[in-house]
């Protein structure tokens, strides 16, 4: 016969046992609720919540490397922005292409380009002759469904900094007269205490201006256009000599709004991030000029004198992926950058290697989802002396020019496994891939990406006239569903 004491102890044990079991069940079960809230958490929308630099969270120091992850092989050359940039080429086609004269009517260098790249001529002409008309027709029939997406895009793009109309020797330097916001003394700039110190300051300012990610690189002249584009205060017929005062490049990136971005190609827009990046670029340049130094913003969508992706790589923001877009740890490829070239003495960052080259070599999600076939499924090729994956710009351009909504595509950005919001699940996956030298996790996570997050059948992304269904990678967010707000 047990004593009262023993009885009490037994019941106390029973109580602990059952409450513990209940606790375990409750603890494990509420992980599901934790997950649900973590998935919905607005703070996972990296870059759309904070202006304090709190989103540049990846520990880059651990992944720094002395050699950037593109590979230099042999002689390099610079981009001829008059022909190698598809927008400039289209400009020539619009201005001076006539069916009667064919390419003979175009300037010599454009003719030479098209003779060397007959496929590009075919694709560029196909766009002008047929695709635009098809797009217009489909837009009349189906375009209204995307009017909220267009309104959002136009609202973001409504505020534009001025175009640069003077050459770098004039435009980049502070003015001694005129508008107080551009005044400074180019002849006696403030002496900065140290480049390290200045870099720290500039990065903080870039974050305060709304930049999500910022990095600094010594400007490699290979990234400067050989011939400039129009609208930069430069003579497009003269080779561009790299100005002496373009010493460092500060690159600042901001993301496109996440939910519309996943609903590409129809609901997304580049202009939300473009416009923020543009304004940051001009503000940052003004900050530097006030200190008496030269600064020139290079801003999206067309106003550059430099190729931006390699600068992002040099500055350690990320690595260039299979789709040609730079993949960053925090934002994936959901990043729209602006560059400021300056003679302010700065300490450059180091490039990083967090496993993207290995990941991209087997993943191929973007190449499989790209309806235009512009993203290579095979290996890297040598482009102007650097080994990398090269996207077929004309194919890409033709596809995105034929879309409705905000006329663009960005499917490769949306489907990239690195383009994920900042919750525990994706942050963990990122850390696993970044710290795995074997590539085993890369294969496993690619498999999961394809199983868990499949997209539509690629041809369905096209407009109906081209045999598609206006498909989007994901459903649009509630605030872009036109049918819920507008009488159609």
């Amino acid at each position, binding site marked *: 016969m047990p004593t009262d004491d023993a009885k009490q102890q037994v019941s106390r044990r029973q109580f602990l046992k059952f409450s513990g079991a209940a606790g375990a069940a409750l603890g494990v079960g509420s992980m599901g609720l934790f997950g649900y809230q973590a998935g919905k958490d607005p703070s996972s929308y990296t870059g759309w919540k904070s202006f304090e630099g709190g989103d540049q969270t990846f520990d880059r120091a651990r992944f720094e490397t002395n050699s950037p992850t593109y590979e230099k092989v042999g002689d390099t050359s610079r981009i001829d922005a008059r022909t190698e940039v598809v927008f400039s080429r289209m400009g020539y086609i619009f201005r001076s292409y006539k069916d009667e004269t064919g390419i003979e009517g175009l300037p010599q260098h454009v003719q030479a380009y098209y003779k060397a790249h007959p496929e590009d001529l075919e694709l560029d002409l196909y766009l002008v002759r047929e695709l635009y008309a098809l797009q217009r027709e489909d837009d009349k029939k189906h375009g209204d469904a995307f009017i909220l997406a267009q309104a959002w895009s136009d609202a973001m793009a409504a505020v534009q900094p001025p175009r640069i109309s003077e050459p770098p020797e004039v435009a980049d330097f502070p003015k001694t007269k005129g508008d107080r916001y551009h005044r400074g003394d180019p002849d006696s700039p403030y002496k900065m205490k140290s480049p390290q110190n200045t870099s720290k300051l500039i990065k903080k300012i870039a974050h305060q201006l709304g930049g999500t990610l910022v990095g600094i690189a010594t400007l490699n002249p290979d990234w400067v256009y050989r011939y400039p584009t129009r609208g930069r205060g430069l003579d497009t017929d003269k080779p561009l000599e790299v100005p002496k005062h373009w010493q460092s490049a500060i690159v600042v990136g901001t993301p496109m709004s996440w939910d519309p971005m996943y609903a590409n190609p129809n609901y997304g827009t580049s202009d939300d991030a473009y416009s923020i990046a543009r304004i940051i670029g001009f503000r940052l340049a003004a900050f530097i000029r006030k200190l008496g130094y030269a600064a020139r913003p290079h801003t999206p969508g067309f106003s550059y004198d430099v190729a931006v992706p390699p600068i992002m790589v040099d500055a350690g923001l990320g690595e260039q992926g299979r789709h040609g877009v730079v993949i960053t740890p925090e934002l994936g490829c959901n990043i729209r950058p602006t560059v400021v070239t300056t003679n302010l003495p700065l300490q450059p960052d180091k490039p990083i290697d967090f496993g993207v080259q290995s990941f991209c070599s087997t993943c191929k999600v973007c190449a*499989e*989802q790209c*309806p235009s*076939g512009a993203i290579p*499924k095979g290996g890297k090729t040598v482009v102007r002396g650097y080994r990398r994956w090269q996207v077929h710009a004309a194919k890409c351009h033709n596809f995105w020019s034929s879309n409705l909504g905000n006329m663009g595509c960005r499917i490769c950005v949306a489907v990239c496994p690195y383009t994920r919001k900042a919750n525990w699940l994706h942050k963990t996956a990122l850390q696993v891939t970044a710290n795995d030298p074997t590539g085993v996790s890369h294969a496993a996570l690619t*498999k999961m990406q394809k*199983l868990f997050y499949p997209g539509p*059948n*690629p*041809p369905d992304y096209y407009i109906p006239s081209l045999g598609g269904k206006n498909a989007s990678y994901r459903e649009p967010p509630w605030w872009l569903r036109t049918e819920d707000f507008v009488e159609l």
Partner: protein
Amino acid sequence: MSLKLIIVLLIPLVLIAAWVAGARRMQTRLEPHLIQVVPGTVELKPLGDGSFAAQADERVVGYARVDQANGYGGPMRIAVGIDTTGTIAGVTIVDHKETEAYFRKVLSGNGPGSFVGRHVSDPIEPGVDVDAVTGATQSNLALVTGVRQGARTLGTNQLGFDVPAADPVRFRFGWAEIVLLMLFVTGFAGTYTQVPGKKPLRWISQIAALVLIGFVYAIPITLTHINSLLVGYLPDWRTQFYWYLLIIGVLLPVLLTGKRPYCGYVCPFGAVQDCLGAVGGRRKKIPEVIQRWLGWFHAVLVFAAIFVALYTRNPGLTSYEVQGSLFDLTGLLYQFVVLGVVLVLSLFIARPWCRFLCPINGVTRYIKTARSSWRNRAK
């Protein structure tokens, strides 16, 4: 005659009716496809060799034809169009008999659009200049072969191109065939002879099958094989010897002796369930009544699957197995969910898939029943 025998005899009659009805409704119009593959076509003019000249305003703008190649589930018909320079202008798939999830995989690698722009003299060969889609090799091969055949025939006959001659078909007997043969030999030995150490032998055989037939080659028998056989889509025995080995190895023993060595020794999905059973102890018993109901459900399910396949003449359509979701992670959402349920159940009960869902088991069980009720017909 017993009721059982009547049902046994009725089943083939209904299936034959489905086959005949299916044959009658198979008439696809080809013209829309032919017009689609050469952009700008207004009119088609037959050229005698099965090809068509695509014309607009009395002017030839290209050539088109429909060719056929053997896929996993049966023939695939592909319309190919070329322009007057010999460049492929368009490709459409007229019809195919592939399993949906696998065919999507093929299309994500080699969509019809991906062939446009290639020249008739290009190799058009998986792994050479077009994607080799792993996990759906046979479906992909059919698509690519169809396109190549069509393009080359058009190129040679209409434009006089000197295109590379097709390789002669060679008898293929590789590691997959050897492995399968060895597993069957083991299975027959275990089933029909009194070899010592039967239990470890069966485990070794099953685990080898799980790794090789399941994960490495990913080609266990499926309902598609049975359906193809019944519809009459027989692949080329020289390139598809494995197919014949598999069908004969599964069906012959049950026809002759009423035993099923494949299930116990060769089936990789059976092996998975046995392994999980060993982990979980599978000591739960299902009540007799529920077993009987599930048995009827199983019979009706398999019968319906074969019936629909025969009527639609599409062997891959009703191949509802979930093993593909496990072995090469291909499948529709419901298949993954069913797979999950089956895997968890097989911890607690013996081979739930085989007993209540497996279409192959449905077929072999019918054969067994037919044999025994025929033998007992006099009684």
